[in-house]
């Protein structure tokens, strides 16, 4: 292991990654997020408290500008709160330095985006394998096997050699889900995962998420505008003007 990765591990440890942190996988305490627009401050999240437990499948809903995507970004460690504490999978994500946060994300978070975000020059199998390039100690063969397993879970094993352009939107999103689960993350964050899909494909994706939650005990936090999608979650949080209703 390199010196830099040791230092990153220490950063994560200092931030409080520890076993036995309880059943809460996400704890947001008085979280405030303020963006600076020119000379003005724009408060997007206002002293927000939220707890999500392991094994949950929860949806964040709200109108545009309500702060739901900002909250998801904070939970996923993509951004830092202006104030307050946000602990995810035992780590105080807001205090982690940039490199440590990237490493933490690779180990703990699976991402599903609205627009799938596949690399067009890689096959489905290679796209799923991509996050495993960051995992140390895995041989090329191991990575490939894991990626195949993940594709089997989402029902796309037979399409593994296809490029994204050769897949439908629903299939692309399933590959994206395989990519999100291939590292066996503690938490899956999904930002409008059905936003670009027709009703049938959206339904398939939501069933798959339900299956991941129920069968594989994956904790899922999903941002959605779609009430039908939100219905599939076990719990729905409504946000408005940066506060939970």
């Amino acid at each position: 292991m390199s010196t830099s990765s040791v230092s990153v591990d220490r950063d994560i440890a200092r931030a409080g990654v520890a076993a036995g942190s309880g059943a809460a996988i996400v704890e947001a305490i008085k979280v405030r997020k303020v963006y600076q627009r020119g000379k003005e401050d724009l408060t997007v999240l206002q002293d927000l408290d939220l707890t999500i437990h392991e094994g949950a499948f929860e949806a964040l809903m709200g109108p545009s500008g309500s702060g739901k995507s900002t909250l998801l970004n904070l939970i996923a460690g993509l951004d830092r709160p202006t104030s307050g504490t946000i602990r995810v999978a035992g780590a105080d994500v807001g205090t982690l330095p940039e490199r440590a946060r990237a490493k933490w994300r690779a180990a703990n978070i699976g991402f599903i985006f609205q627009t799938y975000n596949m690399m067009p020059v890689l096959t489905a199998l290679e796209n799923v394998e991509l996050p495993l390039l960051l995992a140390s100690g895995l041989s090329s063969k191991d990575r490939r096997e894991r990626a195949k397993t993940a594709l089997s879970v989402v029902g796309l094993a037979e399409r593994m050699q296809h490029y994204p352009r050769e897949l439908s939107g629903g299939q692309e999103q399933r590959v994206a889900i395989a990519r999100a689960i291939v590292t066996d993350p503690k938490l899956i964050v999904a930002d409008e995962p059905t936003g670009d899909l027709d009703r049938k494909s959206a339904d398939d994706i939501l069933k798959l998420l339900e299956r991941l939650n129920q069968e594989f005990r994956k904790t899922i936090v999903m941002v959605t505008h779609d009430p039908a999608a939100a219905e599939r979650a076990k719990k729905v949080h409504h946000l408005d003007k940066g506060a939970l209703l």
Partner: protein
Amino acid sequence: MNMGVVAVRNLGRNKLRTLLTIAGVSVAIVTFILLRTVLSAWTVAADHAAKDRVGTRHKVSFIIPLPKRYLEEIKQIPGVKGAAGANWFGAKDPKHETEFFGSFAVDPEEYLEVYDEIIVPPEQREAWFQNRTGAVVGDALAKKMGWKVGDRVTLVGTIYPGDWEFQISGIYTAVRKSVDRSSFMFHYDYLNDSQAVANANSKDLVGWIVSRIDDPSRAAEISRTIDARFDERDQQTLSMSERAMNTSFIGMISAILKAVDVVSLVILFIMVLILGNTVAMGVRERTHEYGVLRAIGFLPKHLAAFVVGEAMTVSVAGGVLGVMISYPFVQEGLGRFLEENMGAFCPFFRIDPATIVWALLLAMLLGAVAAALPAYNASRLKVIDALRRTG
């Protein structure tokens, strides 16, 4: 799959752009190799000069001749094994008015003894020695003019007016690449005994003298001894090793060579700008994708490595293509043409292997330089901002 594969696969994203960029880099590399070959062709005479030869010319200028008697005195200096004088004749073949070639009046036996890298078949050599109007010509010149052994040719003198008749006694080749294989050499006595030389008050003069020495390490010392011998005479000399003498000739066009040198580097700088612009364009277009990679845990250094890897793959591919184009073009085409048709200026116009190595190394290095700023920008992207960009 590994990160290198990802970087290389990214090149297939916009195939036309990648191919055009590789073509652009290869054109720059071809130009670089050509210009460097021009430079090395000019300096080849100096680089491949014999270490055991000393040249002597008039101290003031090489266009002022020396008395021929100096030749005999130089032969007596300890350490000098032999010496030969030569006169620039300057003539044209009226049938080929536009063809330029060097023509010299020399003592055949002395000259071939001093320049033992000039190879004349024994029977032709003997024939030349015996024939006062005989001449030997380089194989490249013979081919160009269509001359064969035994042919009679008439040249028109430019320094010594009149028609000069010669018979081709032999055709020489060379075992050293610095030898001009398109020269015309004939008997000094044929020139010296002519009325034209008498009219020009140039009798018993030689343009320069070349000595063969027995110990190359004493070239400087023997040069000083030669010059000291004539220091008190009316015509003083300047002697130096053949390499130094050839270098002094090159010095006369040093400004042009310097300009060629600079242009060859400017070409590479332009290549960096073209490649840098292409790489930067790719980074801008893929900002959202870089955001995704950062989100799933890739570090800034990984993004930088992807960008540099792509740029270096393009630049090295362009470099290799440039070398593959240049090599046959110069070695089999242009180089052969120049040697056969302009041998007086370019006796050896071939790509130096070191130039190939430099071209490939510079292609690699400049690829990295071109990618430096885009790679830095990619590595500094904020994840949230990058994800918001739709490309």
